[in-house]
């Protein structure tokens, strides 16, 4: 049994076969599962059931999955995991920019979806990061109060921009952050399209905090979408 068992999950997909498979699977893993076929039905269920998490297919007829994200985000921070066909890269970024927490590309394996659901629910259970002034994962330790970063016990010297970038990652661990989100958070609202800045700084940051920058453990690339700060297994 997973630690987040009992959580209520709303699965939105217009494909009956997917709905069936996901429902059966999540149910077997101890979740309380509800399904919806259309965006309208999803919103109605959302208001009614107040699920702990939403698994949402983007490719719904009007209103679309994006409309669902918008609506849910207006009402709170319920985690949303987006299901999408791979070629809808732009849709995926749009969904994440709107506030979706993660995405799973179709076709997907049951374990992958389960793992993403557990991660998203784990954030929910954890107190907000701001309350804790020291962030730790694996070898990486960041003292946000004293602006001290150590990796494997040795101190790491970061430029102000690198430090801001790392802070942006720490604010949303395990979540996919799009290029646009990171740029706007670190460089400001005018920098949404300057992805190359970001790529350069992420590369520098990796050189300083990763043991092997070629195979990063913490700062993971999400191809075509952005980056994710991966938490080490506790």
């Amino acid at each position: 049994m997973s630690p987040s068992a009992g959580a209520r999950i709303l699965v939105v997909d217009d494909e009956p076969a997917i709905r069936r498979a996901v429902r059966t699977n999540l149910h077997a893993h101890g979740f309380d599962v509800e399904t919806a076929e259309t965006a309208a039905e999803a919103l109605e269920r959302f208001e009614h059931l107040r699920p702990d998490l939403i698994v949402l297919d983007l490719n719904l007829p009007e209103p679309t999955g994006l409309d669902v994200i918008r609506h849910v985000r207006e009402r709170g921070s319920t985690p949303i995991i987006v299901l999408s066909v791979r070629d809808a890269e732009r849709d995926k970024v749009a969904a994440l920019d709107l506030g979706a927490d993660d995405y799973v590309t179709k076709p997907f394996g049951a374990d992958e979806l389960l793992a993403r659901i557990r991660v998203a629910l784990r954030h929910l259970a954890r107190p907000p990061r701001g309350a804790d002034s020291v962030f730790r994962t694996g070898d990486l330790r960041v003292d946000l109060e004293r602006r001290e970063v150590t990796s494997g016990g040795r101190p790491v010297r970061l430029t102000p921009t690198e430090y801001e970038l790392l802070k942006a990652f720490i604010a949303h661990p395990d979540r996919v952050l799009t290029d646009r989100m990171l740029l706007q958070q670190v460089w400001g609202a005018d920098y949404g399209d300057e992805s190359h800045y970001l790529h350069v700084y992420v590369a520098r940051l990796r050189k300083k905090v990763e043991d092997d920058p070629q195979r990063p453990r913490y700062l993971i690339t999400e191809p075509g979408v952005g980056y994710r700060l991966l938490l080490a297994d506790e």
Partner: protein
Amino acid sequence: MLYLPAVLLAAVRLGRGPAIAASLLSFLAFDFFFVDPRFQFGVGNPSEWASLILLLFTAIVAGQVAADQQARASDARAREREAIVLYDVLRLMTEPDLEPSLRAVAERLRAELDLAAVAVELRDERTPRRFVAGDEPALHRLGPGLASRVLSSGRAPTAAQRAGPGRWVRVIPANAAPGVPAQAGFASVPILGDGTQLGSLQLLARADRAFAPADDRLLTAAAAQLGTAIVRARLRRDAAENEALRRTDELKSALLDAVSHDLRTPLASILAAASSLRQRDVTWSDDERAEFLASIEDEARRLDRLVGNLLDLSRIEAGALRPQVGWYDAGALVDDVLGRLRHVTAQHRISLHIPEDLPPVPLDYVEIDQVLSNLIENAAKYAPASTTIDVTLRRADDGLRFEVRDEGPGIEPAEEPELFASFHPMPRKAIRSASGIGLGLAVAKRLVEAHGGRIWFERPNDGGARFIFVLPLAIAA
């Protein structure tokens, strides 16, 4: 002084030479008749010389002026005619289609110059094309003989070509100056444009006539005009072709988009079910296991139908579609299809209308199975759950009629004309909500037509959609 009008008359009528001759003649006549000693060519009084020379000078100058004036007037007339012809050429060439324009220009030039035949020959990227005006025998004489081949290609004739019938052709250079004497009844003017020779203007004068120098200038100018217009028309055509290519690309990527969505959707269900079954941390009940397996089977079949459609479409596009026709019972075919699609239509009521006395129909079982499957699958996809799908067979005048009717939202009138088109980009919404419909209907249409039948859409009065196809009861020749 009486002689001056005669000199002027000669100048106006006959030009410069006769005017000078007339001047000299009047000088001699004056000397002979009026200057002492009379009736002989001699001048007694030297002062008479002055008036005589003055007379000669006046006569010559007046003659010259009159002749110049005359030449200028005829030149102006020629230029006016030229301007009108060129303007007509220009006007004819503004037509969007190059070919009728060139034919019209050929006819206009033939009429203007009163020629036997005119041909505009285009050396295209592909084969040379000719646009002609004139009667058959003249055109035959103008026909693409050795000379015009050499002229239009710019290459020396081969031995075989040289052995063929020959004739003289007059070549008017692109920058012809008037005054070259006319020699032959044939003329060829190169059409230049964009620095290359685009083709040539070939003309045949009527029997026992030749080209006048003034015609040369007109033809040169007309050829230049044609060159510009042809270059413009080609640019226009290239732009249109590029646009068409761009649209084809767009369509292809839209299709690829739709197809990859359609392929991945059943794959996603299969993978989700299969990977669930492999999970070791859960013990599945028999029912759950059966449900996953059924899902894998159904979705695999759906994938197979989709791949079948894609293959059919590519076979159709490649022109390799040949129905393997045999005589079958259409009712049994319908039962077969519905049996195979029972999971697809599980949420719907199926209402079957199959008369007992249907004749056997000549059809390719696999292909018509595909057509019916596509129609029924679309109906199930579009129409909401627990509505009715009607499948009807009946005899019609022109063959056996298959109808599939659903109670879904129907087809927008705007979408109707494109309904059966292949590679037509559905609005994104339509692509996803009715995955594969574009492909399915396009394939259905091609398959039915390959049987000599036809397929169409009807909007029932009480809503929904009805697709109908008719197969002939006799094997198409």
